[in-house]
């Protein structure tokens, strides 16, 4: 049962992180200006309603009690309600979350082939022309503002060429793919350089290892050594990076969704900030963090399966 034990161990290790994350979002909310009840029910609420709500969210209690109430509500799936839409935050998130998830997965699918290809070409021709070009592209990719790029792409491919719609999400999976192509491409252009840089560095590190010389001395040939030893070893640090990359993509979705009017978590968050819809901001922030934690847990387990040196 080593895998089960590993999963259990990682879950136990994740508990304090989960607590900390909930504390951060709670403090975020507690520090926001204005009376949260007024924000929640608006100006026309009767004192009775306000009193009921104050009690429900324990707002007259000391701060620690309020945190515990917040935790308890969270565990019951209650993240408060939206001031703007007059619906529970969970409901809003449930309708927006799949869109962002789709976008992130789409971006990853779009990114992986060029990442692997570029990193391998770059590493195998270290210092060569292709390597230099890929390196400059990486520098460029790092410096390009993603919202500006998104704007230009939508103008060119959407308005001028009319190949892709410039906003919305569509209704069928095929339409999703069509609608989200430009948003996913914009985000991909942003993350591909980062991933290429990391994978290239890992490949170069591994190519310089002693076991490569061993493999060559056995007559396996460069290609076989690359396939059998270098590539698997360089995947490990990249897999470990994946959680951080997903966090990056979620952050990027905030900007890209706003440009393309994609009804996802990012757009929801930005609009809620502008409308001072704090419970939604809080809920969205928490969901972003929880997603990253889950992905990190998953990559951790994958890395542990790949690397015999890791034990529970």
């Amino acid at each position, binding site marked *: 049962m080593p895998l089960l034990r590993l999963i259990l161990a990682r879950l136990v290790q994740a508990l*304090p*992180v989960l607590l*900390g*994350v909930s*504390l*951060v979002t709670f403090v*975020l909310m507690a*520090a*926001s*200006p204005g009376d949260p009840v007024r924000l929640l029910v608006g100006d026309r609420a009767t004192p009775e309603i306000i009193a009921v709500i104050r009690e429900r969210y324990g707002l007259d209690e000391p701060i620690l009690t309020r945190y515990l109430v917040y935790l308890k509500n969270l565990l019951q799936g209650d993240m408060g309600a939206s001031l703007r839409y007059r619906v529970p935050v969970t409901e809003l998130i449930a309708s927006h979350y799949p869109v962002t998830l789709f976008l992130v997965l789409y971006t990853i699918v779009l990114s992986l082939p060029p990442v692997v290809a570029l990193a391998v070409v770059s590493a195998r021709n270290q210092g060569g022309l292709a390597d230099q070009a890929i*390196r400059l592209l*990486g*520098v*460029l990719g*790092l*410096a*390009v*503002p*993603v*919202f*500006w*790029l998104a*704007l*230009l792409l*939508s*103008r060119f491919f959407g*308005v001028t060429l009319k190949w892709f719609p410039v906003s919305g999400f569509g209704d069928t999976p095929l339409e999703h793919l069509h609608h989200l192509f430009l948003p996913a491409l914009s985000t991909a252009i942003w993350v591909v350089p980062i991933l290429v840089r990391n994978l290239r560095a890992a490949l170069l590190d591994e190519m310089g290892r002693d076991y490569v010389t061993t493999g060559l001395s056995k007559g396996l040939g460069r290609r076989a050594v690359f396939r059998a030893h270098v590539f698997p070893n360089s995947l490990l640090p990249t897999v470990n990076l994946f*959680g*951080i990359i997903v*966090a*990056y993509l*979620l*952050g*990027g979705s*905030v*900007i890209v969704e*706003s*440009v393309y009017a994609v009804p996802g978590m990012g757009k929801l*968050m*930005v609009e809620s*900030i*502008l409308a*001072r819809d*704090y419970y939604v*901001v*809080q809920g*969205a*922030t928490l969901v*972003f*963090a*929880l997603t*990253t*934690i889950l992905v*990190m847990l998953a990559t951790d387990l994958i890395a542990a399966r790949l690397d015999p040196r890791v034990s529970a």
Partner: protein
Amino acid sequence: MRRAPALLVAGIAIVAAWGLVALAAPFLATHDPIAINFEALLQPPGDANYFGTDNTGRDVFSRVVYGTRYALYIGLLGVLAPMAIGMTIGLVAGYFGGWVDALAMRLVDVAVPFPFFVLVLAIVAVLGPGIENYFIALALVGWIGYARLARAEALVLRQSEFVLAARTMGFSHPYILARHVLPNALSPVVVYMMTDITLVILFGAALGFLGMGAPPPTPEWGIMIAEGSFYISTAWWIAFFPGLAMVMIGVGFALIGDGLARWLRLRA
């Protein structure tokens, strides 16, 4: 000492050139960057307005030139607090280890799952829009990268024999940290700082773009792109030029970071 690589020099030259643009903005600008001119709305690039005019007739070229000041101000000032905080936490945690380290690392563990930009947005949402609040948000979350780097260096350095020797010569911990650990942990942090400046400028502009940065008449690139986004199909130049400026300044810092990293690796 090897010669600095060409790309590093190129990066320094680009950044220096932008620094000059920022300093000489009043001399370079052809118009008042916030002067509205209803006689010349949405004029395409030409002799009167190099980069054209926007929807209120302001000169895009002059606004881009003045915007350099904001970009550099945000980028250079924005990384200071995160670096100072991160270096201190990382070095102390890595050097002393034990419960100090455990505490610092739990703090990092909690901060890592939040997408950086989401957390900055959330904090700015709480504090209200504005560049000062962006700096506060950066100080609250931006230190993590520096702390991880500095800690990794300190973990290695504290086991290295010259630090052990300093301890067995009876020197105090603060002295050893300042004299033997800090100088030798600095290079990767400086490399990271260059990339971080690029990101801080980009995220600052993104805040402006989303309407949470500097207030609107300001000639800030993010705001200009946001304003231009409404006219992207009729007057592309409003959004195009500030973005291009941002790419160039970002490439400058990214090249410095990339070049420094390689240069340091070659020397090692």
